[in-house]
């Protein structure tokens, strides 16, 4: 794992938790949305907090798809689930939601799961060891770059 890849995973965590928090804050201002009045859900986008939350979630999506291009789905999801702790802290101290002890224990268990998966390999399907599918030929002019990708994966 290179520093750039850790930063991408950190981006997934940060954008997802801050985006969810802003969405929640905005939706509480908008009020309950019922199935009978779906247009009111579209109006929710006019709320600035909802709009900003959506922007942050777009940042999450960019980091997430980037991470999925070089790591397993079952690695990316738990490795970035440390965001639940962030969400709980934001919900408690910014949104002033009450969080009971059992819910804090649940968050602790989820965090322990992160530790388990993060210490393992990031990719188990090694059919394309240079990170590219067969449809793209090897780049002979960039041997150092491809060697770097291969070795970082072997280390992780």
């Amino acid at each position, binding site marked *: 794992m290179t520093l750039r890849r850790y930063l991408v995973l950190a981006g997934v965590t940060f954008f997802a938790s801050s985006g969810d928090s802003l969405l929640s804050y905005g939706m509480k201002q908008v009020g309950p949305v019922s199935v009978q009045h779906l247009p009111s859900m579209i109006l929710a986008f006019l709320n600035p907090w909802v709009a900003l939350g959506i922007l942050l979630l777009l940042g999450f999506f960019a980091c997430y798809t980037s991470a999925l291009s070089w790591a397993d*789905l079952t690695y990316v999801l738990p490795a970035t689930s440390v965001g639940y702790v962030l969400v709980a802290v934001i*919900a408690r101290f910014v949104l002033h939601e009450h969080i009971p002890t*059992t819910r804090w224990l649940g968050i602790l*268990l989820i965090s322990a*799961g992160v530790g*388990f998966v993060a210490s393992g390999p990031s990719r188990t399907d090694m059919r394309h060891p240079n990170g590219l599918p067969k449809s793209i030929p090897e780049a002979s002019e960039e041997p150092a*770059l491809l060697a770097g990708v291969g070795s970082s994966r072997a280390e992780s």
Partner: protein
Amino acid sequence: MNDIYTWIGIGLVVFSSVAGDVLLSKAMKQVGDVAVLRRRMGVMKVVARVVSNSNFLFGLLTMTISFYSLLYGLSWGDLSLVAPAAASLTFVGNAVAARIFLHEKVDTRRWIAALLVAGGVALMAV
């Protein structure tokens, strides 16, 4: 009734998220490492390569359904329940789906992680 609406929202999020995650993951493996591709082709060609992938487009559609379900759930329940419960149950569903559809090696380490997360979700729903 709010509880029922909250859990219906969570259920919708989980189902559509698992489908979306699996499709997106499959698409991005077909595309290749975007950092390597970006250096070789440039950003625009990489973006074009991603958005022309059919799995990506279907993944985007199911992710959109998941997003609307999340908005629906959040308007009924607390963020600290809806967001982690939906995402964690999605994670467990993904462990099964990734093994079946993506042929990932979901080993003991990853199953333990799945069980820890599932336990965490159970505690949070009490």
